[in-house]
């Protein structure tokens, strides 16, 4: 009964790991609590997106991850 949180790009460095398994279900408040203060602050940035089950959420605060879901934290893509 777990959800996998996946850290992409620069967020992987901030998290110090590729992914983290947390208990399911997981909503926005649960996610904020699970990732630590540093990443929680970055998630507040409008340019940081969240995908659940392979789909980017239009409103990331509506996150409702179930058992087996992968929740990907997507920082802004790089320029250049």
């Amino acid at each position, binding site marked *: 009964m777990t959800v996998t949180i*996946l850290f*992409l*790009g*620069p967020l992987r*460095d901030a998290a110090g790991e590729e992914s983290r398994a947390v208990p399911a279900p997981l909503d926005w408040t649960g996610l904020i609590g699970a990732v630590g203060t540093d990443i929680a602050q970055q998630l507040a940035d409008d*340019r940081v997106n969240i*995908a659940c089950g*392979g789909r*980017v959420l239009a409103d990331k605060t509506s996150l409702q991850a179930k058992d087996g879901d*992968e929740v*990907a934290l*997507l*920082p*802004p*893509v*790089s*320029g*250049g």
Partner: protein
Amino acid sequence: MFEDIRLLDGPFDPQEIIQATADSTMSKGGVANFTGYVSSSGDVEALELSHYEPLTLPGMEDLARAARDRFDITAITIVHRLGRMVPGDPIVCVAAASRHRRDAINAVDFAMDHLKSAAWFWKRELRGGTWHWIEPRGADHSDLARWKSE
């Protein structure tokens, strides 16, 4: 309809890719292509591209479909590198074939403009032995806006 949409984590030869796209349309008009190479601006020793697979390849496939719907083309090829590259390495290769030259050129232009928004890529550069993430780009809508009013 020839379609070749790929993400590669090893080197590729753009000429082989253009040739395959051309072969598919031989005696039917022409092939347009754009190939991008890793820049050697400044003191960059290497470039690494990471992505989120469940989003990137479907995004590129949707883009190929959009190009096919919009332009009269007989082939479309979108190939993008991932992983670690050095300056001079090919990083992206887009090719389109059509009976009509303007459609082939415009399809390549269209695909290159939309590739940035279709793909979730994060880049970091190796400079002086240390990896640095490349900063997020600003709002970059002017390239896409070109295709809205037509």
